[in-house]
């Protein structure tokens, strides 16, 4: 006579790739809001991006309000 047995496994560990992805999002978001002075857009716009500083102006008020040095 065949007998069926079952085991139940509960996994609660955090996959390393999820942590790496979240760490990358953290670093990117922090740079965009806290530190970018035209660097990101300079990839497309060249030196003009440092003069226009679109992201800097967009994040300007949050930058001050959240405590980041701005200008």
């Amino acid at each position, binding site marked *: 006579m065949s007998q*069926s*047995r*079952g*085991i*139940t*496994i*509960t*996994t*609660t*560990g*955090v*996959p390393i*790739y*999820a*942590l790496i*992805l*979240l*760490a990358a*999002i*953290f*670093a*990117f*978001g*922090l740079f*965009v*809001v*806290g*530190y970018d*002075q035209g660097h990101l857009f300079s990839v497309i716009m060249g030196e003009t991006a440092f003069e226009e500083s679109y992201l800097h*102006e*967009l*994040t*300007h*008020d*949050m*930058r*001050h*309000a*959240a*405590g*980041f*040095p*701005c*200008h």
Partner: protein
Amino acid sequence: MKTALFIAIVLAAGCFAGTIHGLANLAIVEPYLDEAIGIENQNLFASGEEEDTPQFQVEYDSYRIWQKGGQVLAGAILGTSIGALFGIVFALSRKILPGNNHVKKALVLSGIMWFTIYLIPFLKYPANPPTVGDADTVVLRAILYLSFIAISGFGAVGFYQLLKRLEKRKRFVAFIGYAAFLSTAFLLMPENPDEVTAPMDLVNGFRAMSVVAVSIFWISLGVILGALWQKYNPDKQIQTKTY
């Protein structure tokens, strides 16, 4: 763990909390920013760098609309970013955090992170409104601020590792050690090189509202992430093998 659900919960919580932060800033910090930028403009007129013309006002109003609109968007981006960090720490520490549900656990962690990576760095390098800060020193100030966040944050992790290895009755040593470590960092780290030239009423009011808004963010982040974790429970992954 349901990884996709975990990531979605973490990012959604950060984005919501960041949006709340942006809205709080619009309500309570923005008046101070407007006042400070008004002083900046008066300084520009006085120095002759700009003229108080209707054209200037049109350009000024235009970029202030862009900046104020960006307040909420930047809040969502920054919130998602800090939410990602919060999610990492929560995922790794949730089993040892005090509290009988995930909301309480997340609130405890948000309180710890608010204290270590926001309040302590703020006490050394407080937020400043526009008109305060020389553009030539912005890189130095950014490095100092980020360094102090790292010193305080990694210091807390290090002294927590020490605390775990100590007997219960000796654990106060870890707290004293962290306090001594931070006091040393306070003394050794250079001061903000820029002189505060704006009226102190404005600066202090701005700083107080800034602290209130950032605190609202951290409370929101803890509550939202905890509630989402409680509801959707990304831990719950059961594999049943039958043989």
